[in-house]
C-alpha cells in the first residue's frame, strides 16, 4: 500500500537531531520485589543509554529482569533505587497525572499477549489512547483508520480482537501503540506468538517506523531475524547487563542463542 508521505510526516514530526540524542537513560536502576519475607532482586544496578531513533533489542532468559527493565524504562513502574530519565526528565519526579501523560503521548507499548481490550473493536482500541489524549472522536477515527491502513489492517477495523488472527491482533496492538505519535515504542516479545511470515512483516514494520519516522524501538526478543535488524543488542542476566554489541559483532550461530 503506498503511504501518504505528507500525512506520515504530519503524524510523526521528524526530529532534526535524530540519531545520537539520548532519549532514555537508566542510571544504576535497582528493583526489589518483596513477597512477604522473601526479597527478589529483579534488577541489580542497570545503567544504559538509549538513543533517539535506535532499534534496540534486549535479550535474556526468563527471570533475568528483562520485563522489569522494560517496565522501568517504559514508566510503568518506579525503580526501588536509581534514576530513569525519559527525554531528560526524571520519572521519579512525575506525579500520576504527568506519568499518565507520558504513557499516553511519549511511549507506545506492544505487549507479548497484545492486551487489546476485548470488548472494543480494532478501531476503538486504536482510538482509545487518542481519546485519553483528548482528541475528538471524528479526528481520532480518521487518524486511527489511517494508522490501521499503515499496519495493513485497514480492511478489518470493526472486528473484535477475538475475531482476528494472532498476527492481526499484533498489528492492531502496534497500531494502538502508534496512536499518539510516540517517540518510543516498547515491544515485549512482539513476534513470539506469530508465525514466521507475520513475524517478518512485523519486523519490517518496526524497521520502517525507525527508518521513516525516527521512532526509537526497544524490544525484548529472542527472534534471530529481529536481532539481526536491530542496531544494538543488550544481554541481561540475573539483573545485570552482561553484554552489549552490534549485530555485526555477534556470531548468531553460537550457543548463546539457544
Amino acid at each position: 500500500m503506498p503511504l501518504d508521505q505528507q500525512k506520515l510526516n504530519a503524524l510523526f514530526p521528524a526530529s532534526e537531531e535524530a540519531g545520537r540524542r539520548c532519549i532514555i537513560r537508566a542510571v544504576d536502576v535497582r528493583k526489589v520485589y518483596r513477597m512477604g519475607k522473601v526479597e527478589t532482586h529483579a534488577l541489580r544496578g542497570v545503567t544504559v543509554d538509549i538513543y533517539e531513533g535506535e532499534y534496540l533489542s534486549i535479550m535474556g532468559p526468563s527471570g533475568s529482569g528483562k520485563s522489569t527493565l522494560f517496565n522501568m524504562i517504559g514508566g510503568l513502574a518506579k525503580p526501588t533505587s536509581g534514576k530513569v530519565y525519559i527525554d531528560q526528565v526524571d520519572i521519579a519526579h512525575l506525579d500520576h497525572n504527568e506519568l499518565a501523560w507520558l504513557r499516553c503521548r511519549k511511549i507506545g507499548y506492544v505487549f507479548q499477549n497484545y492486551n487489546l481490550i476485548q470488548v472494543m473493536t480494532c478501531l476503538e482500541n486504536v482510538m482509545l489512547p487518542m481519546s485519553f489524549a483528548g482528541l475528538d472522536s471524528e479526528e481520532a477515527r480518521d487518524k486511527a483508520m489511517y494508522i490501521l491502513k499503515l499496519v495493513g489492517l485497514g480492511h478489518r477495523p470493526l472486528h473484535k480482537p477475538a475475531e482476528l488472527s494472532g498476527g492481526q491482533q499484533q498489528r492492531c496492538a502496534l497500531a494502538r501503540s502508534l496512536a499518539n505519535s510516540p517517540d518510543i515504542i516498547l515491544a515485549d516479545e512482539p513476534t513470539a506468538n506469530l508465525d514466521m511470515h507475520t513475524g517478518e512483516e512485523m519486523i519490517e514494520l518496526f524497521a520502517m517506523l525507525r527508518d521513516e519516522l525516527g521512532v526509537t524501538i526497544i524490544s525484548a526478543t529472542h527472534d534471530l531475524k529481529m536481532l539481526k535488524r536491530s542496531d544494538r543488542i543488550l544481554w541481561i542476566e540475573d539483573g545485570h547487563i552482561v553484554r552489549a554489541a552490534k549485530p555485526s559483532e555477534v556470531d548468531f550461530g553460537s550457543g548463546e542463542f539457544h
Partner: protein
Amino acid sequence: MPSSIQNQVRLPLSVAFGIVMQGIRIRMGRAIVTLMGVVLGIAFLMSILTGQSIRQGVSREAEMRAEGNRMLSFLTAEIGPVEGRTLGVIALGPLNDMELRLVGELRNRRVARLQWAGPPPTRAAAGFVQPAGDASVGQGAAALFVMGEGTAPGTGWEARLAGLEQKVVAVTRHAQGLPEMPKAVTICLEREWQPDEVHARNIAAMRLRFRTGWIIVISLLVTVIGICNAMLMSVTERFREIGTMKCLGALSQFIREVFFIEACLMGFVGSLAGCLFGILFAAATYSVSFGVGLVLASLSPGTLLVHGAVSLGAGVILAVVAAIYPASVASRMVPAAALRSTI
C-alpha cells in the same frame, strides 16, 4: 529538544459513560449476573418492607372488623336489629377510620338511612346519608349516634331525645363527653382498655417492632454482601483491562469514574427491578394466606412509594459504597502489576 511533560487531560464524564455502556453491552451476560446480585438484594429488602406493611394493614383491618362488629353488637343489644331502621348521627368533626368503618358497616346491615348533622363522612354514599339540621336530627330515628372529633354540646338534648323511638344515645369516643341524661340510655362504643390489656398490647407491639427491625437489618446485610460481591467480581475480572488502559494513559480518576458510573447504573436498574419483584413476591405470597382482596386493600400506594424510594436509594448507595473499595484498588494499581495479573 527535550519536550516538557504536561498534565494529562481530564476527560469529560461522557467518555467514561460511553466506555461503561460499551462494556455492559458487550459483557451483557456478566452484567446481568452482577445486576442479579443487586436485584436479589433489593427484592429481598423490598419484599420484607412490603410484607411488613401488608401484615400491618391486614392486622389493622382484622382488628377494625372485630371492633366494628363489637360496637354493632353492643348497639343491637340495646336497640335490637338495625335493619330497615333510621338512625341519627351528630358528627362533631372529622371521623376517624373506625367511625367511617362503622358507617359502612351500618350500611352493610341494611340500615335504611342515616340522618346526618355536621360535616358529612368522606366515603359515605349519597342516598344513605341524609343531611339534616342539628335541630331536626333524631326525628323519627331509632337511636342517636355521636361521632367524630370534638365535644358533644352540653344542651339541646331534650329536643333531640323527644323524636327518638328508643331513647338511646351512643357515643363513639369517651372524649366526646356526653352530659348526664337521666331520661335516656347512654352508651359508649369505644372500648375501654384495662391497664393490663394496654400493657400487654404495648409489649406485643414492641416485640413486633423489634422483630421486624431485626429482619430489616438482616435483609440490609444480605443486600450489602450481595452487591459488594457482585461489584468486586466485576472489578477483579477486569484487572488486565484496567492495566492496559493505564498503560495507554488513563488517569486513576478516569478508572474510578468508570467504576462509579457502572455502580450507579447497576444500582439504579437493579434496584428498580428489585423493588418490582419484591412487591410482586410479597403480594403474591401474602395473597395465598390472606386473599387477594385483603392484601390489595391493605397496600397503600403512599407507603409503597416511600418503601420503594427507600429501597431504590439503598440500592444505589449500597452499589456505590460497594464500588469504593474495588474502584480504589483498580485506580491505585501500578500498570505493570495490573498487566501481570492473570485473572
